[in-house]
């Protein structure tokens, strides 16, 4: 249960335009301020999710991502910059997010999700956004989110295609139930444009905002699939069992 936090006058000024959205208002903004979100990892997908949630006024972000910034990150990882090459990814991300929103509480964990940290990471937040490149990490987060009763937004991309859905405790299946095995052919490095990861990242952030604030209709029981090569969008109905 998210405990709403009252807004300051500065926050009312910053979030004025989104508080004009019908059904959201100051009550929705207070819920965002009281919310915490885990994002793993914060690359092409997760970085954009984090940036949008920081801009929207989510109170606390937990970022989990190991390693340093590499040249090949810079086509899509929008929280990383050229002068950050060779430096910690999460530290670069945290710095960019604080520049955007100095009120944001950021917890930068320089680790990927593992068996050792998954329970604690998921347990420390209200909602999880899964942006990891490896299915081992995705399954760990999904199993923990399901067992701890936490909602999870699932974002994925490949080439010019993307998939998005939202898992809710007691209402939907989670990723490891939808795909019980990891695909043997999946590789950590794959072809993609930053504009594709950015597009699905923005949509994933909107799913998180909807679930936290209780507005709109989250993508539950449905998988949004889109191909930006053809600008083809489909909502696929997922089976119940």
């Amino acid at each position, binding site marked *: 249960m998210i405990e709403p936090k009252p807004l300051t006058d500065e926050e009312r000024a910053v979030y004025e335009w989104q508080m004009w959205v019908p059904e959201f208002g100051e009550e929705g903004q207070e819920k965002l301020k009281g919310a915490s979100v885990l994002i793993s*990892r914060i*690359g*092409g*997908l*997760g970085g954009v999710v984090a940036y949008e949630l920081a801009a929207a006024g989510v109170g606390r972000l937990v970022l989990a991502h190991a390693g340093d910034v590499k040249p090949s990150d810079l086509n899509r990882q929008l929280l990383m910059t050229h002068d950050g090459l060779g430096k910690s990814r999460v530290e670069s991300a945290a710095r960019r997010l604080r520049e955007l929103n100095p009120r944001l509480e950021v917890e930068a964990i320089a680790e990927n999700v593992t068996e050792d940290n998954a329970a604690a990471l998921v347990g420390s937040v209200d909602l999880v956004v*899964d*942006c*990891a*490149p*490896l*299915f081992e990490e*995705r399954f760990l987060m999904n199993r923990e989110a399901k067992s701890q009763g936490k909602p999870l937004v699932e*974002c*994925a*991309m*490949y*080439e010019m*295609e993307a*998939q998005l859905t939202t898992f809710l405790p007691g209402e939907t299946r989670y990723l490891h139930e*939808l*795909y*019980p*095995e*990891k*695909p*043997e*052919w*999946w590789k*950590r*490095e*794959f072809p*993609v444009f930053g504009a594709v*990861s950015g597009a699905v990242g923005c949509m994933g952030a909107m799913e998180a905002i909807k679930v936290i604030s209780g507005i709109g209709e989250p993508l539950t029981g449905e*998988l949004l*699939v889109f*191909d930006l090569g053809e600008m083809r969008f*489909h*909502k*696929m*109905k*997922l*089976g119940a*069992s």
Partner: protein
Amino acid sequence: MKVKIRYCGQLKQAAGCPVEEVESGSGLSAQELIASVAASHGEPLSGYLLDGSGGLRATVLAFVNEEQVDWETARPLSDGDELVFMSAIAGG
């Protein structure tokens, strides 16, 4: 009857095309068509779609007219249906 088949993600490369139309006799189920498509394409597509016992792989989802196919329940097909294969993808 004619059924349109669309391949998403890495299945597109395995099939060698993003979309194709197949013609078959009436009364075919989605499960039978999937087996037939795997057999006609051969490898690598058949290995991506089917497991060792001829069932749909746990890493692939199949949809007919945007509704997920439950492999255990025969899903009859009609002329003009669209069958979509989707493989699990991740992020980065």
